[in-house]
């Protein structure tokens, strides 16, 4: 079973819940798909045993074959190619903007002169290892790189279908999040009981309905803010599966890179209960 932990708003406690759930269950595989700022390893402290550099294909133009017809530019949905047909200082030229390229391959498929081949551009790496019985995989996107979905897919390719897989998703509701959560059997949305938490929870719930992924809510920092998250969930019949009280001690542990369950072992039972409730509401008990 694949459980993803996501949220509209950043900083609500995705990593806190994903990490502590994983530690409370023990025999799981953890995938940190927040490749722009992976941080689960700080809490899980896995022994990393493998690293693989990840590349996306980008076009390389053989200008000895190119006729500057402009077909590649025309088919590129991401404006990653400009073709200057004979008006440039040295005759024609083709300019490729690799950071805009999504590696779809349309340019090389449609080039009538077969003048385009694809070369690899490194966007980051996937590292993996173990902690006790837990499998661990995360992606690290190169600094300055904007193309995270291909790297997230590479992290997810390592999912072990024989185990319970916990995915720590990036915040938001855009392409990286969709890439991280799609294919999950269940998604837990972490929110905080504030107007900001609610606003982004509503957006995230809409995204998951669109993706047809069953989901429920965990409320972190319970006790602050107002009751509108509860009202919304009640109105929409979204189950709230867990509440973590607002606690300076938990925040302090987080800031030191210590998982809450190692400081408060009694929390482990609550996280195992959370897992049971997830199995019940997702119908996979």
């Amino acid at each position, binding site marked *: 079973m694949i459980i993803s932990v996501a949220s509209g708003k950043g900083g609500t406690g995705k990593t806190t819940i994903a990490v502590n759930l994983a530690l409370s269950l023990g025999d799981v595989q953890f995938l940190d798909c927040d490749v722009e700022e992976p941080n689960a390893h700080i809490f899980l402290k896995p022994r990393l045993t493998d690293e693989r550099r990840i590349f996306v294909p980008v076009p390389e133009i053989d200008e000895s074959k190119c006729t500057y017809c402009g077909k590649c530019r025309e088919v590129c949905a991401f404006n*990653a*190619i*400009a073709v200057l047909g004979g008006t440039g200082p040295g005759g024609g030229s083709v300019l490729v*903007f690799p950071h805009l390229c999504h590696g779809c391959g349309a340019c090389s498929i449609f080039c009538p002169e077969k003048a385009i081949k694809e070369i690899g551009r490194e966007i980051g790496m996937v590292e993996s290892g173990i902690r006790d019985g837990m499998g661990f995989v995360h992606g690290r996107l190169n600094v300055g790189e904007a193309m995270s979905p291909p790297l997230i897919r590479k992290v997810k390719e390592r999912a072990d279908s024989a185990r319970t897989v916990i995915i720590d998703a990036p915040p938001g509701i855009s392409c990286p999040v969709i890439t991280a959560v799609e294919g999950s059997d269940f998604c837990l949305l972490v929110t905080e009981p504030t107007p900001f938490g609610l606003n982004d929870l509503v957006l995230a719930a809409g995204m998951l309905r669109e993706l047809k992924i069953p989901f429920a809510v965990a409320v972190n920092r319970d006790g602050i803010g107002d009751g509108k998250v509860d009202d919304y969930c009640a109105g929409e019949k979204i189950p709230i599966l867990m509440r973590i009280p607002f606690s300076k001690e938990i925040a302090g542990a987080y800031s030191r890179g210590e998982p809450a369950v190692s400081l408060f072992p009694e929390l482990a039972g609550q996280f195992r209960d959370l897992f049971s409730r997830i199995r019940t509401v997702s119908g996979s008990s």
Partner: protein
Amino acid sequence: MKICVTSEGKSLDSPVDSRFGRCSNFIFFDTDTEGFEAQENSGFQFQGGAGIQAGQLAVSKGVTAVLTGNVGPNAYRVLASAGISVFTGVSGTVKEAIEGYRNGKYKAAEAPSVALKSGTQVKNE
């Protein structure tokens, strides 16, 4: 010869648009005939590559100079590669910009004037 001025509107009295790739309109002005053509910028809301498309358009129109407020690195690369002179820091109306260009008021940019994605920020004027 033809020059391209980024414009908020479609007439010569419109203010110069301070952005290149994400301007509202392009005015293509022919200095020989004094005629012009206004074209809406279809790349205004592109998620990425607006400057590249705008540069490509300027190239296909055969302009020799671009007058605008700012130009980013991608658009600059397209324009410079095509041998088009880029004049940044241009303001006022389109008509004033063309006048200024003819009087040698502006100096051609030798580098992009702003960073990637600058045109996507909300204008605060």
